[in-house]
């Protein structure tokens, strides 16, 4: 169905080709996963399938890409619209119209499909994706998962043979992501579509994949069955890490498979000891904290203590009140109740002083950046924090990402931008650091870097509170976990006791070794030696 023949792609002003003599084949009806770090060329592979690369992005393509017999050299993306459906990361950004029905019809209108046939196809597509009840809804009012399903429906209506999805779940919470991925696997199994899918959180989809394309970032790609390609790649989902620790040649693709292998081998790692509760002093204490928007109670009477030198994660569904709680703790959102951070109430402080006591990195970190260069942002941060000139730049270097000062912050990758914002916010050296969903859209490598950074911040004596949907990240980074639902804290305790005993929030290692309390592959490794 999809054939790359000796494809070399060079972007304008690039030193070396992003893809170098790449040949690959994806068969009809396959579910093919594309994996690789951010910036490795994953999106290039996806975009080349329908000709967005190079027609839309610019660049020079040598060799040939054929889809269903049509070459992208002769067909522009719009002329492949009836063969390849392309769905991007953030569905809301790709919507042209504003209601579900219009959006689904839009592609067909472009293809000049007869209005009678169009009407029928819209109905069929609505049913296929299970969104018939949403048909007249404004797109902005849908939840993230629904929006992504509408985006998929909108390209499916043109009846393509191939569906290309570029990280469709990166901005979704776990339930919505599950929802979308289930819809995609249904399309492969029941409709017979060929699907090419780039996905960061491999643990959810690798069991359904027929093949994996690994894009390491040096211009080459390797293609093959999931189990063997993952074993050799630098992309390490938890089960891959387990396979390495246990010395298995190929990666188990599901928890069930891993559990059986562990049981049949009979190797029992020693469960880690329960950690000693952190003894640092309480730097943030909130009592009966409530946030209200009109009639809605976003946060209801929350009691919370954060201790110096510890990392806590805040988990819960979308809309559970996590963000509101973080904004309230920073003092940027009006709230009722008592709040003391390092002996002061941030609500009573000026913005400049508040950020020296407690700092927050918001969900869309880029909102904080407005200057033309990294150096200018750092200098401004020093000024705002009253710190020695150069503090922010030094911090940025310490965080482990070297960024040339003259780079435009808007050209940075997601991970680099996060590091820059963290450096800016840490310049004020606050005793409490709050991070709102920092792991959104990050690949495994960047998440590991972030984990290192967070551990280092805690080591300097600060208290860190992170809201996240990423169970594996929480398992790796935090000492304590707080679970929120409906604006209330429903459970809190050590991460190990809380996550291993949970059904919804258990990390994969916990599921493999249940009832033993393992959280990460590192725990298993320690338990084996």
């Amino acid at each position, binding site marked *: 169905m999809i054939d790359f023949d000796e494809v070399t792609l060079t972007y304008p002003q690039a030193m070396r080709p992003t893809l170098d003599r790449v040949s690959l084949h994806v068969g009809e009806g396959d579910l093919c996963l594309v994996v690789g770090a951010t910036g490795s060329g994953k999106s290039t592979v996806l975009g080349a399938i329908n000709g*967005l690369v190079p*027609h839309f992005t610019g660049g020079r393509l040598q060799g040939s890409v054929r889809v269903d017999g049509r070459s992208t050299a002769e067909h*522009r*993306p*719009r002329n492949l*619209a009836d063969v390849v*459906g*392309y769905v*991007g*990361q*953030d569905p809301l*950004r*790709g*919507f*042209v119209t*504003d*209601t579900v*029905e*219009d959006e689904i*019809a839009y*592609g*067909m*209108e*472009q*293809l*000049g*499909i007869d*209005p009678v046939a*169009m*009407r029928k196809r819209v109905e069929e597509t609505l049913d296929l994706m299970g969104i018939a009840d949403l048909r*007249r*809804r*404004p*797109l902005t009012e*849908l939840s993230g998962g*629904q929006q992504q399903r509408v985006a998929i429906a*909108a*390209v499916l209506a*043109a009846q393509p043979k191939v569906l290309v999805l570029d990280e469709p779940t990166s901005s979704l919470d776990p339930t919505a992501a599950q929802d979308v991925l289930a819809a995609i696997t249904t399309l492969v199994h029941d409709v017979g579509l060929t699907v090419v899918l780039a996905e960061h959180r491999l643990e959810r989809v690798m069991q359904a994949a027929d093949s994996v394309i690994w894009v390491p970032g040096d211009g080459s790609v390797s293609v093959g069955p999931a189990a063997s390609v993952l074993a050799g790649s630098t992309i390490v989902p938890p089960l891959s890490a387990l396979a390495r620790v246990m010395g298995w040649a190929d990666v188990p693709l599901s928890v069930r498979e891993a559990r059986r292998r562990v049981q049949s081998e009979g190797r029992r790692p020693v469960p880690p000891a329960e950690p000693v509760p952190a003894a640092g002093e309480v730097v943030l204490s909130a009592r009966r904290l409530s946030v209200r*928007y*009109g009639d*809605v109670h976003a946060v209801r009477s929350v009691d919370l203590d954060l201790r110096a030198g510890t990392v806590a994660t805040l988990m819960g*569904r979308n809309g559970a009140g996590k963000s509101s709680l973080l904004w309230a703790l920073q003092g*940027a*959102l009006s709230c009722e109740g008592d709040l003391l951070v390092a002996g002061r109430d941030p*609500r009573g*402080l000026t*913005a*400049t002083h*508040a950020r020296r006591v407690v*700092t927050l990195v*918001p969900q*869309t970190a*880029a909102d*904080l950046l*407005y200057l033309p260069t990294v150096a200018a942002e750092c200098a401004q*941060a020093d000024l*705002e924090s009253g710190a020695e000139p150069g503090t922010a730049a030094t911090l940025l270097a310490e965080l482990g990402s070297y960024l040339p000062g003259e780079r435009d912050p*808007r050209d940075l990758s997601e991970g680099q931008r996060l590091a820059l914002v963290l450096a800016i*916010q840490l310049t004020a050296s606050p005793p409490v650091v709050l991070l709102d969903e920092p792991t959104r859209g990050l690949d495994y490598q960047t998440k590991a870097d972030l984990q290192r950074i967070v551990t280092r911040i805690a080591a300097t004596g600060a208290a860190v509170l992170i809201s996240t949907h990423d169970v594996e990240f929480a398992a790796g980074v935090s000492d304590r976990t707080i679970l929120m639902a409906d604006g209330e804290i429903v459970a809190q305790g050590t991460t190990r006791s809380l996550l291993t005993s949970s059904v919804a929030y258990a990390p994969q290692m916990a599921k493999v070794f249940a009832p033993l309390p393992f959280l990460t592959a590192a725990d298993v490794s320690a338990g084996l030696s």
Partner: protein
Amino acid sequence: MAAEGTVPLNSLHPWAWWCWAIGLGFAASGTTNPLLLTLIALAAISVVMLRRTKAPWARSVGMYLALAGFVLVSRLFFQVLIGSGSGPTVLFTLPELPLPDWAAGIRLGGPVSAEALMATVYDALRLAVMLLCVGAANALANPRQALRSVPAALYEASVAVVIALSVAPQLIESVQRVRKARRLRGDTARGVNALGAIALPVLSDAIDRSLSLAAGMDARGFARTNGLPVRGALPVMLGSVMVATCGVFLLLSTSATVAALAIMGLGIAGTTAGLRLAGRRLRVTRYRRHPWGWHESGVAASGVLAGLIVGVVGGLDPVAMMTPTYPLTWPELSPAMLVTIALAILPLAFTARPRPIPLDSSRHDAPQRTVRPRDAELVRP
């Protein structure tokens, strides 16, 4: 914003409302009879009140009422201040203040007569009622559906408008988010610099958004069925529009009304034909195009007829539609005027009261999304 997309297709075609309103506006522009004007305004307002939906644009009629009131008051103010109209019935006299020569010898103040005031009121009332007719169309016609039925030649431009309408609410959310984020950085920027701190992140976000939107549109086949521009369409259009403008020019600068109207009509017809011709290069189809039925024809015809009656009667006898102010007389309603008013209210017979549409959101965090922390809720240091 939220209710816009949920309006079902069984509403009346938006152009029908516009035809009705333009016709009424034209009728209003041809008369100074305060009775007729008031009745036209009442007719328009009652049609709006009985036929409008709960959509956001339906509230615009209040704004237009206020605007009409403002027109009346400001006209009266200027008349009293610098009016030169003299009449036998002097109501009161203001102290006079002559201005220097360069000001064309204008004097402020002076005697204010009832005749001059009434003339101003009639004239301002005419303008106010025309404004109200425009307001009625704005309140009744669904702007998005009007966009769906633009000529094919304008397809690309209409896509840009559709994009703008869909993106605007998202950008407002983006502005609110960035303003909130300012506090986190210490909020040191003030005044115009603060504008930059908000404008730059929002704009660069908007531009990124436009690129991903363009990629999506391209991948979904946008512009795929565009052919090359049709030969000859442009000269036809440009020629005709020049003819139409000449017609308007003649209409305004000479008294050859009929000939001028004919030339103008010819030009408009030619341009429309040219646009149709130019639209042939496009083979885009439309999903659920709004049908034009007899309801629509009826509503449109009632407005157009009302305008025609006033135009024709006024053309045959220039004073028939005017109320003299010198000497002051009580305005009277002629049979033609009664017919006009009946036509103005006729759309009520062709249309039904709109059904309320249940609105609910399926985002479980919808309440928070819509009442996201706004400025007022931010703690100000």
